[in-house]
């Protein structure tokens, strides 16, 4: 089983990297880009088969370490 965790800056927290990527895309003439947010993806290989338990565990991992909830949101996807 694996867990895919996506961490990104909270809405309202300025994403400087996203802004820089947007500017770069504009200079490449990709004019259709309205907004860019840069996040990170963390993929965890997990023992066990209980997806509910896995989600609980990974939520705790996110709260403790993987995300800084002062500035970041996280989303967890469990893949069997």
């Amino acid at each position, binding site marked *: 089983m694996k867990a895919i965790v996506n961490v990104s*800056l909270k809405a309202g927290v*300025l994403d*400087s990297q996203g802004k820089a990527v947007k500017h770069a895309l504009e200079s490449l003439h990709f004019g259709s880009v309205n907004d860019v947010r840069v996040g990170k993806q963390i993929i965890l290989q997990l023992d066990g088969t209980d997806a509910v338990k896995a989600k609980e565990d990974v939520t705790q991992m996110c709260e403790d370490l993987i995300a800084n909830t002062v*500035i970041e949101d996280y989303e967890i996807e469990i893949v069997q």
Partner: protein
Amino acid sequence: MKVAILQFPGTNCEYDTQHAFESLGATTEIIWHKSESIPSDTNLLVVAGGFSYGDYLRSGAIAKFSPVMKAVKTYANNGGKVLGICNGFQVLTEAGLLPGALKRNEHLHFLSKHHNLKVINNDNVFLEKLACGDVINVPIAHHDGNYYIDENSLKELYENNQVLLQYCDKDGNISNPNGSVDSIAGVCNKEKNVFGLMPHPERAMELLLGSDDGVKMLQGFLSA
């Protein structure tokens, strides 16, 4: 006066910090992060600058789980004085000992230069030897120094006199190098025993090196 200085893998300002405090007459001890206690005669605990754990995941995120951090929390919660400089500030925010968080600098550059700072509150041991409104010159050297705090918590910081320093120009007008909320360079906790700042007072100890404004800052701890 005994100053204990934390050392994680990747810390690189512990010896500068030691030199700075010893030049003021303090005795010092460098504490490796695997230690589960800090010396009982410690008067000030410094979380020194550097790149603990290579800044992996986020600056300070992994250091907060080092064995020594449990003792640091106990020490701080019992009123012990703690100073976090640069990466030390990041570690203390990650550990929840100081409010807010440090993000990547707004323009994404690593900044390494002298910068002016304005003293905002001095009713604490750290800045008591300076006056409110004083402009001091201290080096900064960071990539993740963009202080963030939500609006309500920011209001609380001001109400409790927890904002210590703001980045400014030589005349004291706001000049924000890294995008920090309200140009904030340093804060303390509500109880005023835990302090954190991105600039490096330990690198501003003699005029030969560009500034000795750090002396008045660090001296505050010695007279307490």
